């Protein structure tokens, strides 16, 4: 559209120069003053002054006539036209032009009378020039034309009739018309001088008007650009106030739609090179006519969006005739390296002419800032993803499901930002049904702290699986961290919970003490032989501490983010945790227990540091043991540990315990190994005492082996170790029920 407008302008200018020779007359006309242009008020003021001058002559002329010695009648007759004309000019209802004419004629008549009364002296002719000067105040053609005509006719006619009344030298007296022409010529000259003067002052007024118009336009433009600068400033603020790409886009579109356009679209270049379009603003059906509104087809190189991306040059789409389709601007959003996409601004309302090519720089500036903000947002998002990935890779994906032991943990990242915290925990099933549990906190945050944490976690796992006892393990980690020359320190607890022996053995390296919560709700901190944080002193020796843990007890490990806050001492935090643990419901879910604990201790204040809680509960032995287990061979150890505790509680001897464990182990191994099909991922073990010990192993798969599937050696072993064995195969799985009378139970009926 603007292109069209410019073309039109150029055409006009060219046409003008072609017609130049033909329009000499018109140019002369253009250089002449227009006349009659005085505002009415100005004309009236000047007219009054000039009339006053006329009336003054009406009074002066008779006096001059008397002085020159003419008789009264002569003086009266000769001077009477002046007051007559003055009266007409003053009181008549003639229009402005006629009044101007009458007044001018009146003044020139004064000159003629004075020349006559003075006897045609040259000096009195000067009066004509003064009067021409006076009437030029009207800034009109009428008085000039009147003056030139008057002098010519008066001098000619009067010079012929009575030369002595007009001239006082012979040359003129002998040739009155010739001298009338000469006088008229000088009057014309004087008029021309006045004209030039008048024209110049008129030009000055014109220029002043032009300047005024230009200034007003400039002020308007300045207001627009000030608005846009304000928009850009707002845009920068809004754009950088958010690090979410979507929010950034919302800001951009809001800026644009209030200031410039009706709608705004962003086509993001995605990783694969495809475009993802986001549209904001009011898009009516009419807008669909706009070619940019259809997203570019694959390989469409002519599409404005594609062109803007490839060429990095803004594209302007001119409006059609009558503004349909309306105009649009497509600007590339250029990041540090790549084109991030395009920003398309368009109008769809009747104000379609609003968007012009002159708006491109503004749109480009906006796109530049938006690109910067989007890039920042993407960078931030990427960093945050990296941090989160790192963080999650350092925490166990899920806690192991173990028979007889429940585990739960929560982790809360402290504060905003992309830095990775240094807290971690781990739960590692060990041989013999034992469980390694660890919690740690690397001092500081960020990638270095996280990387140390990762090293410690991996080393801890390796050492733990290798069978290192807690004291040995923590000492080994201290060697590792001091040898690595890390400037970071870390606190940690590593402990092994042995359900079979009912004890918890651990080593503490400068970490807040573990809390033991008994089944009856009594909480005690497991005070340890103190150790410095890992990395504090090379060769520091960490002692092992051992505590009795009974069924139903919960061990709570946590990091200092839970108990520490800036405003209160660590003791207060420890007291709060102990109190919260004592009143927390113990029967419910252990995850809920952790949640409840963190809520109660933090008391609603935001967590400023990272915080982790790991709770491990040794389930109490009940009359009836029911275990749901994953079909994995590494649960067998825990199964035995739990069953061993239960059998001991049931009064089984060591030999009986061993034999029942083997019998149950055979059945469980088969359930894990051979059970397949839907529901094959889990199996159940139940143990109950109904006079006999009854152990049931139930799976949900089909055993492939026809003969009860219990391996060649397995079946005779079970048969020797239990009193009765029932194997029930159904379509939903297989149930192995084993019954054995304990020696201690055999005594009871006789004693009772």
């Amino acid at each position: 559209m603007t292109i069209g407008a410019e073309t039109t302008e150029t055409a006009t200018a060219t046409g003008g120069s072609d017609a130049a020779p033909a329009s000499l007359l018109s140019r002369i006309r253009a250089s002449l003053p227009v006349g009659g242009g005085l505002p009415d008020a100005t004309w009236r003021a000047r007219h009054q002054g000039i009339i006053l001058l006329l009336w003054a002559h009406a009074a002066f002329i008779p006096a001059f006539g008397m002085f020159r010695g003419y008789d009264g009648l002569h003086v009266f007759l000769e001077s009477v036209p002046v007051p007559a004309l003055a009266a007409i000019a003053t009181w008549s209802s003639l229009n402005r032009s006629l009044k101007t004419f009458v007044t001018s004629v009146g003044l020139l008549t004064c000159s003629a009378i004075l020349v006559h009364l003075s006897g045609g002296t040259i000096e009195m002719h000067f009066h004509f020039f003064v009067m021409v000067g006076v009437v030029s105040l009207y800034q009109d053609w009428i008085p000039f034309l009147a003056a030139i005509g008057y002098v010519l006719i008066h001098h000619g006619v009067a010079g012929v009739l009575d030369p002595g009344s007009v001239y006082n030298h012979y040359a003129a007296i002998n040739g009155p018309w010739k001298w009338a022409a000469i006088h008229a010529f000088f009057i014309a000259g004087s008029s021309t001088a006045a004209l030039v003067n008048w024209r110049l002052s008129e030009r000055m007024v014109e220029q002043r008007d032009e300047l005024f118009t230009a200034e007003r336009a400039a002020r308007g433009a300045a207001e627009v650009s000030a608005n846009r600068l304000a928009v850009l400033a707002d845009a920068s603020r809004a754009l950088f106030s958010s690090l979410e790409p979507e929010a950034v886009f919302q800001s951009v579109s809001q800026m644009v739609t209030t200031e410039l356009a009706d709608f705004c679209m962003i086509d993001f270049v995605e990783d694969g090179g495809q475009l993802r379009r986001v549209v904001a603003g009011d898009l009516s059906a009419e807008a669909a006519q706009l070619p940019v509104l259809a997203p570019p087809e694959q390989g469409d190189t002519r599409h404005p969006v594609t062109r803007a991306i490839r060429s990095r040059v803004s594209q302007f789409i001119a409006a059609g005739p009558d503004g349909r389709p309306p105009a649009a601007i497509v600007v590339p959003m250029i990041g540090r390296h790549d084109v991030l996409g395009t920003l398309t601004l368009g109008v769809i309302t009747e104000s379609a002419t609003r968007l012009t090519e002159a708006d491109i720089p503004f749109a480009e500036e906006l796109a530049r800032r938006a690109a910067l903000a989007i890039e920042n947002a993407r960078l931030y998002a990427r960093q945050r993803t990296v941090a989160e990935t790192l963080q999650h890779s350092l925490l166990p994906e899920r806690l192991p499901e173990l028979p007889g032991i429940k585990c739960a943990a929560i982790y809360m990242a402290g504060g905003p930002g992309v830095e990775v915290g240094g807290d971690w925990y781990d739960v590692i099933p060990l041989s013999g049904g034992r469980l390694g549990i660890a919690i740690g906190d690397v001092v500081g945050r960020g990638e270095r702290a996280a990387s140390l944490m990762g090293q410690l976690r991996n080393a801890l796992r390796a050492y733990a699986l290798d069978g290192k006892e807690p004291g040995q393990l923590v000492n080994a980690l201290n060697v590792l961290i001091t040898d690595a020359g890390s400037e970071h320190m870390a606190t940690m607890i590593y402990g092994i919970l042995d359900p079979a022996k009912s004890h918890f053995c651990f080593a503490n390296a400068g970490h807040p003490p573990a809390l033991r919560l008994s089944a009856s709700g009594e909480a005690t901190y497991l005070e340890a032989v103190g150790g410095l944080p890992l990395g504090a002193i090379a060769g520091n020796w960490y002692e092992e501490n051992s505590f009795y843990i009974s069924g139903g007890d919960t061990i709570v490990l946590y990091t200092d983010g839970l108990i520490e806050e800036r405003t209160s001492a660590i003791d207060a935090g420890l007291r709060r945790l102990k109190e919260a643990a004592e009143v927390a419901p113990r029967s419910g879910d252990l995850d809920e227990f952790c949640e409840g604990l963190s809520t109660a201790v933090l008391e609603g204040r935001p967590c400023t540091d990272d915080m982790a809680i790991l709770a491990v509960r040794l389930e109490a032995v009940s009359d009836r043991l029911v275990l749901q287990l994953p079909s994995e061979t590494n649960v067998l150890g825990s199964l035995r540990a739990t069953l061993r505790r239960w059998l001991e509680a049931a009064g089984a001897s060591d030999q009986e315990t061993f034999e029942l464990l083997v019998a149950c182990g055979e059945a469980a191994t088969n359930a894990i190994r051979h059970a397949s099909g839907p529901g094959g991922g889990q199996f159940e073990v139940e143990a109950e005492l109904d006079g006999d010990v009854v152990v049931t192993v139930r799976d949900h798969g089909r055993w492939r082996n026809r003969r009860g599937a219990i391996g060649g050696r397995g079946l005779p072993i079970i048969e020797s170790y239990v009193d009765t064995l029932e194997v029930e195969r159904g379509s939903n799985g297989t149930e192995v029920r084993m019954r054995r009378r304990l020696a201690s139970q055999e005594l009871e009926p006789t004693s009772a």
Partner: protein
Amino acid sequence: MNVVSITENEGQVVAALNGDIDVSEVDRVSSQILAAMHNDIRAIVVDLGKVSYLDSTGIQMLFDLIRRFHSARQAVAVVVPESSPLSTLLKITHVHEACPVGPTVEACFDAIGNDAKLY
């Protein structure tokens, strides 16, 4: 935790196992024992004195080891103290029919001393 500890003395090896040996451990245990073997070894005693749990997969492992040692012309015996709950298990599974089973390491070496002459 090391489930196997192996000591060698003049062609005689004692492989002492401990802890629980179940399906998840047998492969590791047998490969640890086999890795310690070489041609100069004449006699092996597998000591189950500190084993707290052994099931049919463990028994199967013992039979496999015995067969391999015998085919390599190596004598083998298994130690199970009388007090160990495992002793009944070995009887049920007839391990003593495949190789000597004795209450101590010394008793086992004595037993295979006689046996070893066969090879």
